């Protein structure tokens, strides 16, 4: 029972990270109709920024968010202006191919600069406290806390502010948004910037617990896709739900299948993805966008 509870807690905590890291993916897809296959690479870049600050300035990864998020925002804003903007109105496969190329380019660039050695950051938030026989590692609790904070602020931003409302308007009906005077290009760049900032932050907070390396991106992108399929596009409560479901599944398999559990957990998330796509292509709750035309490029 304790083992089960522990696995459940670990899964929920992992799920918090998953929810935070996939949110940008799902919002970009929902607002702009772009499937960003370079999403995992953005997490990786955020993690490396945090590692740089940790290694050379001695900054705590959680404190480094104050620098990582603005830098990632600028990266995302510029990327949108010079690259993604060219593919937004094109069929979805074009953006898929372009971001796939971007993913290869970024991961190999980082590989050249930092080599493939896995790295970890040090954080002051160490140790654990326990309730009964169930332990709560402080680092993971902090990750969960930051993830919830990020998600709540994004939700408040999208619901309550004028800019947030413009973003939602652009997602609902681009032409109508333009007619009422919303500068679509600016809104898209802003959305991309914010989403990349959140994504980079997710990379920064995970860096103390998971080794970071240049090619960590693709499995994370696929997980983001799995959770989007579970949760639907752009829905923040859905992201939390989907993230926690995936986190619990992975953590349970990791605990109960000895030896090869961690690899099996990775397989499970992809099998889940393929099964959801095959059985319910519209997403578990019908949240995925239907593909209007069979094949386009």
């Amino acid at each position, binding site marked *: 029972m304790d083992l089960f509870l522990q696995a459940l807690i670990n899964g929920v905590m992992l799920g918090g990270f998953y929810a935070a890291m996939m949110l940008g993916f799902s919002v970009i897809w929902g607002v702009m109709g772009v499937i960003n296959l370079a999403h995992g690479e953005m997490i990786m870049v955020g993690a490396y920024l945090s590692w740089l600050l940790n290694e050379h300035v001695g900054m705590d990864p959680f404190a480094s968010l104050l620098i990582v998020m603005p830098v990632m925002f600028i990266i995302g804003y510029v990327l949108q202006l010079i690259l993604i903007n060219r593919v937004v109105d094109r069929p979805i496969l074009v953006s898929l*191919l372009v971001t796939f190329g971007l993913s290869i380019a970024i991961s190999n660039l980082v590989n050249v600069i930092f080599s493939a050695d896995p790295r970890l950051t040090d954080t002051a938030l160490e140790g654990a406290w326990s309730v009964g026989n169930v332990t709560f590692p402080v680092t993971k609790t902090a990750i969960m806390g930051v993830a919830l904070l990020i998600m709540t602020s994004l939700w408040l931003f999208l619901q309550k502010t004028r800019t947030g409302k413009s973003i939602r308007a652009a997602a609902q009906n681009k032409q109508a948004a333009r007619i009422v005077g919303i500068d679509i290009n600016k809104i898209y760049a802003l959305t991309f910037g914010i989403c990349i900032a959140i994504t980079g932050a997710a990379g920064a907070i995970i860096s103390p617990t998971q080794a970071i390396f240049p090619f960590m991106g693709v499995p994370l992108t696929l997980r983001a896709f799995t959770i989007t399929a579970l949760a639907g596009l752009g829905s923040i409560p859905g992201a939390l739900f989907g993230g926690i479901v995936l986190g619990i599944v992975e953590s349970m398999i990791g605990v109960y299948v000895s030896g090869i559990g961690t690899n099996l957990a990775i397989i499970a998330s992809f099998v889940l993805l393929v099964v959801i796509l095959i059985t319910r292509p519209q997403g578990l709750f019908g949240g995925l966008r239907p593909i209007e035309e069979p094949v386009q490029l």
Partner: protein
Amino acid sequence: MTVPPNRPPTKSRLVLLVALLVVLAALPIVMTVFPDQTWVTNSRLFSFTQMFMLITLTSNWNLTGGFTGYVDFGHAVFFGIGAYGTGIFMNEAWPFWPSMLAGAVLAAVFALIIGYPTLRLKGPYFSIAMLGMFVAMREIVRVAKPLTGGGVGLTLPPYLNRPLFYYVTFFLAVLVVGIMWWIRRSEFGATLIAIREDEVGAEMRGINTTVNKIAAFVLAGFLTGIVGGLWAYQNTFIDPDGVFFPSRTVELVMMAMLGGLGTVAGPVVGATTIYWMRDVVWANLAEWHLFAEGMLMILIVLYAPQGIMGKLGDRSGTSLLRVWRNPLRRSALEEVPEDEVSV
């Protein structure tokens, strides 16, 4: 939408093609007869072998990605199954050729099993599902330790005979391009293109789209499995990271796009161009070359999505090569400039 006719090649082109094939076939003989010259060496034969493999792989990818219009981001999964199948059977002390065939059959069976559900997915969902399949297979291979050696990998009996591999891959590349040329001219090929252009319409006309899609997928998987087996034997060592190398699946997409999707010559042109660019130019870039490859892919998609053969097809008027362009043109036409809209 009309599918352009597929004309037989003109006589002068045929002569040129045969001359090229004869020269390529003669290269290893040149090496044995004139051992002193430095142009044809073992390492150059090795380069050509790699290039022939890439041409074969890209042509296979083009069968599902270009002809049928199902852009597959995980085609290298069949390469991996072929390689591991060959490796596993050879470690059971089977000889090479039956092992390779068994590996390719495994890849084909796998294509059959996953093709039925995944080919029902449309557009990006198919691409992502296949990418997921590719990554999942790498982990499965890592987990299935008793069979595949896990992360440590498998060692195959070493066998160093560059001319043999050269001829086998050369023959395979010619054979596969020939098959693609035949498919393109056959009813089967026309069916595949009909599926790409309008799947519902094709179904309405009485085409069994499921069977045709799966047939193309299984054929591509089988041929790619053969290449995987050859690669494993030539490399003499396979491990999950080497076989399921992430960029292996990307470069196929890129080469086919550079050459021209949905054309017979496109994959050959694309694979040859990128291979020699990598060999000659990017050798100087050393570890930067994968970064350059990613950037090149972005540039191709943005500025030359119809590929080299598509561009050539424009000028010479042989419309065989412009199949993939039509959807692009259609989407360009749909964006009517605002001042041209009549009220």
